[in-house]
């Protein structure tokens, strides 16, 4: 009975779409293997911190570390190493640290490669104000869902004549429908009351018009969730004045990029914001969205909060709500206490001290 309840919970949390194959039932009693990609710069330190905290919480997670430096596959196309790809496809869940994009390496950014390899079409960023980390905005509780594969970031650009450049923004029916469906599923499964589509259809009539039409069509099937449409500029204006009006926002790529970073800024920056990428075939990669911070790499000064909160998001996705709550509460308590904070949060403790404090709180809870 317990097994049944847990497996039902699992398929409902992060919006499992009906057409997808159900998530593998290796959780509940057994240990779930998760692919861990430490990343570059401060990546390894914060990954170690997260692993330590999970160990202290006795979470049933086994980590499989993999590296994702780009390699040239057969046919000359850049790809991620096959071991990493295989591991991800087997485990379906991944946790990723920051990856650096070398400027003149000749290959596209690693994040782009990962996105293309696993068809990560939705980027989900829940932004909730953190008690204890004061920002001018105190009542933020919204989720931005951004279409991650097309739109303005299609990468198709041409030099028409010398001095005139054309960039193409691609909007397709399929991708718009997919992201709209994901957004509504997410809203339904996480008890969210409304979904707002953000667009600029007064100017980009056909492209954003298509996106809106698809959203409206999908909204018909989800009558329990309220659907509204708002212009991008109105959203920006209102977001900065009163963010409590917003719930779930769904939008194409560029607007999503700008708005999700805007919302991250409202709660305190990229150092405390979790993020998850959902792909086709049940793959989900959770990541920290900050940079690699090469200037503090290896000095035990990094803040693991972003990666930790993304890992908590991952636990919720897998249905391990108890562990997720425990670790999240410990993390927020440490920040609220303000005794052991890393430099970017306003204190001067080391990363290891911060981690140890969270581990202690987690163990005390048991």
């Amino acid at each position, binding site marked *: 009975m317990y097994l049944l309840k847990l497996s039902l919970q699992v398929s409902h949390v992060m919006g499992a779409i009906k057409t997808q194959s159900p998530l593998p039932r290796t959780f509940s009693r057994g240990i779930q293997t998760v692919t861990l990609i430490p990343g570059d710069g401060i990546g390894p330190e914060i990954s170690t911190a997260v692993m330590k905290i999970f160990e202290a919480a006795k979470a049933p997670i086994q980590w499989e570390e993999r590296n994702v430096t780009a390699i040239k596959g057969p046919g000359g196309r850049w790809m991620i190493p096959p071991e990493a790809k295989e591991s991800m496809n087997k485990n379906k869940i991944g946790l990723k640290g920051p990856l650096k994009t070398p400027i003149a390496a000749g290959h596209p950014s690693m994040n782009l490669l990962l996105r293309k390899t696993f068809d990560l079409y939705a980027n989900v960023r829940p932004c909730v104000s953190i008690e204890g980390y004061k*920002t*001018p*905005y105190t009542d933020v509780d919204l989720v931005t869902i951004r279409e991650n594969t097309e739109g*303005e*970031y299609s*990468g198709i*650009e*041409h*030099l028409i004549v*010398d*001095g*005139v*450049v*054309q*960039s*193409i*923004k*691609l*909007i*397709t*029916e*399929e991708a718009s429908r997919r992201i709209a469906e994901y957004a509504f599923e997410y809203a339904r499964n996480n008890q969210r009351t409304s979904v707002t589509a953000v667009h*600029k*259809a*007064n*100017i*980009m*009539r*056909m*492209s954003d*018009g*298509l996106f809106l039409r698809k959203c409206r069509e999908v909204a018909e099937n989800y009558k329990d969730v309220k659907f509204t449409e708002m212009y*991008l*500029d*109105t959203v*920006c*204006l*209102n*977001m*900065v*004045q009163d963010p409590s009006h917003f719930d779930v926002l769904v939008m194409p790529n*560029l607007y999503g*990029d*700008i*708005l*999700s*970073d*805007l919302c*991250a*800024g*409202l709660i*305190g*920056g*990229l150092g405390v914001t979790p993020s998850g990428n959902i792909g086709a075939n049940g793959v989900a990669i959770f990541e920290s969205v900050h940079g690699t911070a090469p200037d503090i790499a290896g000095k035990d000064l990094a803040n693991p909060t972003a990666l930790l909160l993304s890992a908590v998001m991952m636990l919720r996705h897998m249905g391990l709500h108890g562990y997720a709550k425990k670790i999240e509460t410990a993390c927020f308590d440490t920040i609220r206490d303000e005794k052991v904070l890393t430099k970017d949060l306003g204190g001067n403790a080391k990363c290891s001290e911060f981690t140890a404090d969270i581990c202690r709180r987690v163990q005390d809870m048991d």
Partner: protein
Amino acid sequence: KHTTIMMATLTKAFKPILGRQLGNTAKLFPGLSCTCNTPTECLFIVYLQPPPAKYGGRHTVTLIPGDGIGPELLNHVRELFRFSCVPVDFEVVHVNSASTSEDDINNAIMAIRRNGVALKGNVETNHTMPPNHKSRNNLLRTSLDLYANMMHCQSLPGVQTRHKNIDIIIIRENTEGEYSNLEHESVSGVVESLKIITRNNSLRIADYAFRLARDKGRRRVTAVHKANIMKLGDGLFLQCCKEVASGYPDIEFDSMIVDNTTMQLVSKPHQFDVMVMPNLYGNVVSNVCAGLVGGPGLVPGANYGRDYAVFETATRNTGKSIANRNIANPTAMLLASCLMLDHLKLHDYANMIRGAILTTMNETRLHTVDIGGQGTTSEVVQSIMRIIQSGGPLTTEI
């Protein structure tokens, strides 16, 4: 005055010959002052803007009421001007947003070409209409080549906001970029929208930004872009900005990616001074900044072209939900009319009205609903008129 007319005729005569040498960079843009010491110096470096339509000492300005709160706010502007005896006559041109023919907007454009200056409300765009029905506002901007949108965001002391003492100038390219209206559906279900960036327009807007910064004594210009993803498009924009920056060594230049910019704006807005950017990012950033200083009812905006200038509220909202209820905030539109008076060189009137507006805003606390008060539009306007009358100049009866 005679030298000005002489210079104008001479410049026009010499222009075909000197045209190529003068090039784009020799033009002076409206909104900026020019100090020429000798007529000959002016001849070679100044291309004068066409003089405003000034007959009998009075200027004529085109007025486009628009939709939503536009008509009522512009009525208040006219009332205030009449009361303060401002020598400006308005030629009203209505643009019907529901009609599909472009005659209305073409009439408006013709009127602006005639008068040189306009004050407008926002014309609503119904986005369920087919794509060939273009946004009227956009059509106006591109036909008149109003390439620079300038918005000065300043915190007003009487208004409660989360961030204090913000002072940012935003310059947004107004004609190209994502607003090119070039879209097509090559395959069913796949729509392509083109974003155009040209070297000429980028150089032009960057030049405007730097000249404005120098004119107003600003120290830094920040270019906002997304060149890490749109390498050719925004890369070209950034490159043009850098080229222009090298000609202004006294002004610092840096660049920032748009998502980082929005994040910094909500956490540390005081690091920004003057910002220059392409069209869409300008839309986002200007709305974020307007929100930071207190909302859409407080910030005026100006669209400058080489020959024409159109003034409106910065965030271009129609305000349909608050139309005709006497609760709209008239500050943005009134400040925009002051910008217009400055452009017409009626500085005394502009300063008088602006002073009265700021006094009403800061001291008497007669705030409208959008900034947390309970005042009505007419109360605010009455208060401004009372302050002007008490200031002593000639006015009509209230």
